[in-house]
């Protein structure tokens, strides 16, 4: 897939809440391939970084520049939240909703939503009220809903947090397929095993700033900074 979004150029971008800087200033360039994993201790600013890049969190300073205009850029990306936001509709209704927003007819949207549900293993739950799904099923539904419009960039904020091993494996399998199909992934996680399995690039965040940024291979082989090294060893990093 040739993406019109990239390169993404972030210059001095930050997000504040009151006087507190949640993340930033961030300077970053992202190209259109691979899986970027954002790691760091609690409160490092992982979620804020993803929300800032996606445009949900308002910029306090700096700029985020996509290769296309901002409106077009927003249309070409999607976000999966840590606690999946499930609409009070059926599984089919949840999946069809983003397609209906694009103006697709109900029949076509339902047909595509049905196919998407089968792809993630929710095919036999189409009519079920989505709020009553299990945690793993809800996250799979959120992921399928995010992917149904075929975004070029997908943000994932700890999508496997609080899921068991089996559900995590299923989500990872979908992510690997998605990445292989050409969708760019930027994802935060606390799970170092998952980071090693999925990452092609790592962003290590500490106190709201990018502390280390490099290829996954290099990072996991030997981080440059003492803090990243300590974090990988499981030590408490502040």
């Amino acid at each position, binding site marked *: 897939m040739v993406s019109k979004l990239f390169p993404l150029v972030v210059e001095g971008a930050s997000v504040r809440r009151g006087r507190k800087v949640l993340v930033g200033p961030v300077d970053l360039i992202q190209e259109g391939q691979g899986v970027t994993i954002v790691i760091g201790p609690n409160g490092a600013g992982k979620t804020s970084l993803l929300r800032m890049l996606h445009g949900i969190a308002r910029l306090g300073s700096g700029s985020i520049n996509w290769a296309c205009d901002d409106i077009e850029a927003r249309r070409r990306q999607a976000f999966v*939240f840590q606690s999946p936001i499930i*609409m*009070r*509709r059926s599984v089919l209704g949840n999946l069809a909703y983003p397609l209906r927003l694009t103006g697709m007819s109900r029949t076509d949207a339902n047909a595509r939503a049905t196919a998407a549900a089968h792809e993630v293993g929710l095919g036999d739950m189409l009519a079920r009220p989505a*709020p*009553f799904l299990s945690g793993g099923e809800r996250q799979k539904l959120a992921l399928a809903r995010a992917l149904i419009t075929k975004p070029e960039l997908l943000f994932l904020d700890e999508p496997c947090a609080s899921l068991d091993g089996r559900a995590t494996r299923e989500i990872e399998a979908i992510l690997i397929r998605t990445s292989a199909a050409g969708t760019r992934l930027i994802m935060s996680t606390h799970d170092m095993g998952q980071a090693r399995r999925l990452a092609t690039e790592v962003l290590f965040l500490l106190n709201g700033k990018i502390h280390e940024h490099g290829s996954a291979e290099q990072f996991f082989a030997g981080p440059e900074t003492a803090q990243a090294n300590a974090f990988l060893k499981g030590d408490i990093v502040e």
Partner: protein
Amino acid sequence: MIDIWSGLSQAFWLLVTLDADLVEITLRSLRVTMTALVIACAIALPLGAFLAVRRFRARRVTIAVLNALMGLPPVVVGLIVYVFFSRSGPFGVLGLLFTPTAMIIAQVIIITPLIASIAHQALRELWSDYHDLLISMNTTQRQRIQALLWDGRRALLTAALAGFGRAIGEVGAIMVVGGNIDHHTRVLTTAIALETGKGDFALALGLGFVLIFMAIAVNLAIHYISRTEQEGRW
């Protein structure tokens, strides 16, 4: 006590014999109330959703005023509508005073703030759940309001039923603007007030029981149709 038993038996008798006057008054009550409810819902539900979604300078004041208007005195509303539609009033030329239309207008004014306020409370919670998702999906404000109204429809039913309850039991305003004219603007509540004034407590109680029965029946019917109590629904 004797009056209550007498009222019950009279209500039973009126219902069993399908008394022509009772049927006419009941149908008029339903027609006026349901029309007012539909119009009020068409105004109040999108307004409630708009107030949940949109941030603007006077938002807090608007919500506070809306909440305050929930306690709008019906007689005062009736008086204001009367002044507006009386022959010398600004809308006097329409000739709507002492017609069911004037009664509907008064009821709409009374129940719209109530429905909007309850709808806003329910949709505010839903909006806090949906906020990030709908922003992320790049939805327009109209699409957000539509999503809230559709997904919050069962909570909004409560708002509509509250409006129905207030409207069907309303007497002050519709007495003033409707005039309680026999075969024209007489409804259950005004008929009860009239019979009480005449000292016919049994008939007044009978009509009262019919009113209560009708209110409960409409509530149950709406709950049944919308299947709010079904297992596995939200």
